């Protein structure tokens, strides 16, 4: 029944999807946290930069960004990311760059909304008993903010998992690329569609359930 799978590396393609997701997740978490730090900083110029970045990047389609990394960064600016001759590795790395640039805007917003859920009174009380800025941040605000950020961040992670299919636009050999190839060459359209749909359900369902459970468990009851 599943002989149409023969000759295709479906697991390998999904492994690439997983790699894209995890590497982009780490990158966008770092860059997104930096952006969030700028957006809540007391320096107006940093706040302005953070706001501008988020509003610009969120309104550009991810596809435009991914295609730009290939046609713009690689072809025109000769960005090689340490993989000058290896086309596969280059498009893989370029797509991660694109995902990080795009997803960081959403991570930034998730973290900022997490910080905003901490009541001002918490920080005011902390300052009133004489804690310094770093103490307020590390002991009072961040522990509470982190807990309320898990839910929104889980949403961003799941959206990112689905978004990695856009890498197909620049020929990264991930799930959507393989599905396009298989669906064009094999007769079992429906079965192929079902296999790939199932793959994504398997990737997103446990993540969603686990992180959802975690965010409920850790939520600060107010």
């Amino acid at each position, binding site marked *: 029944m599943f002989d149409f799978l023969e000759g295709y590396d479906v697991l390998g393609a999904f492994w690439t999807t997983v790699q894209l997701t995890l590497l982009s997740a780490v990158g966008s978490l770092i860059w997104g946290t930096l952006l969030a730090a700028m957006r809540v900083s*007391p320096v107006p*110029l940093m706040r302005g930069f953070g706001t501008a970045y988020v509003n610009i990047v969120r309104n550009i*389609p991810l*596809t435009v960004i991914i295609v730009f990394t290939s046609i713009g960064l690689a072809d025109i600016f000769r960005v090689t990311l340490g993989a000058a001759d290896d086309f596969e590795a280059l498009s893989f790395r370029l797509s991660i760059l694109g995902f990080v640039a795009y997803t960081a805007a959403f991570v930034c917003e998730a973290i900022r*909304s997490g910080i905003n859920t901490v009541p001002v009174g918490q920080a005011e009380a902390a300052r009133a008993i004489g804690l310094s800025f770093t103490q307020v941040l590390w002991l009072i605000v961040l522990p509470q903010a982190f807990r*309320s950020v898990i839910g929104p961040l889980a949403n961003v992670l799941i959206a990112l998992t689905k978004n990695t299919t856009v890498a197909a636009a620049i020929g990264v050999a991930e799930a*959507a690329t393989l599905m396009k190839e298989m*669906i064009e060459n094999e007769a079992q359209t429906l079965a192929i569609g079902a296999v790939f749909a199932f793959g994504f359900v398997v990737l997103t369902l446990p993540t969603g359930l686990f992180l959802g459970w975690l965010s409920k468990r850790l939520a600060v009851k107010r």
Partner: protein
Amino acid sequence: MSSVLYDAPGPRAKRRNIILSVVFFALLALLAWWIYRALDDKGQLEWALWEPFTESEAWTTYLLPGLGNTLKAAGLSMIIALPLGAFFGIARMSDHRWVRIPAGAVVEFFRAIPVLLLMLFANEFYARSTDVSTDDRPLYAVVTGLVLYNASVLAEIVRAGILALPKGQTEAAQAIGLRKGQTMTNVLLPQAVTAMLPAIVSQLVVIVKDTALGGVMIGFTELLNSRGTLAAFYATVIPSFIVVAIMYIILNFILTSFASWLEGRLRRSKRSTGAVLGAEDVEELNAAEIGGAYGSGASA
């Protein structure tokens, strides 16, 4: 100005903030200079590359028809997805298990799948099983993919909109003897639609952004696809990307502003129940939130 993190700055904090501003400005200037140099190095600032965009031909032949197709696909998808979404959203709240569970399964399934897979599948399906002409097929495929995905997101928006209404609305409707269907169509839905409006407009931004996928992957001649044709004709790569990105930003900015204006207006309105679904709720619903495992706590 005071926030959760910092108090109104004193003299020392003011001095530190000024120093940080100067350092950050220097970094930004350095970045800008570096980008300028890179552009200049590759000759991307030459007037010849930018000139096409000052002439009407580039706009009337490539960009505006592309933008038109983007809007057409997005509009069609929204119009078809709305009733479907309303149907599944309401079905999911049915009292009958045999209606509620299948509807829930359909909604969760299509939200868990990347919209690109749906488009690819629809494209191949139309090619093999229908006699849709090759010219129309990309539009059909893009709209089908977007409808399947967005109907399931809209179903969740509808459900959240109805659940956000105060319980008293249902209770009052039942008290005056309305049947379940009447309660839904005469009392809950009209109010929920108002509450959902900002969320629906925000979802339109997601749809507009997703149309670009169809341009690259199945040859639908929307804005991003037209950029490729234009870039090949005028041999202008970076400028074309910048122009197209700005077009998307302006379009989506208008939609986002309209959504938040609606949201603010509805929140202030005295006639409504105060139940509003905003942009933040939409973001949450777009990530497959399977089985409603989490949600309310996150956006509070």
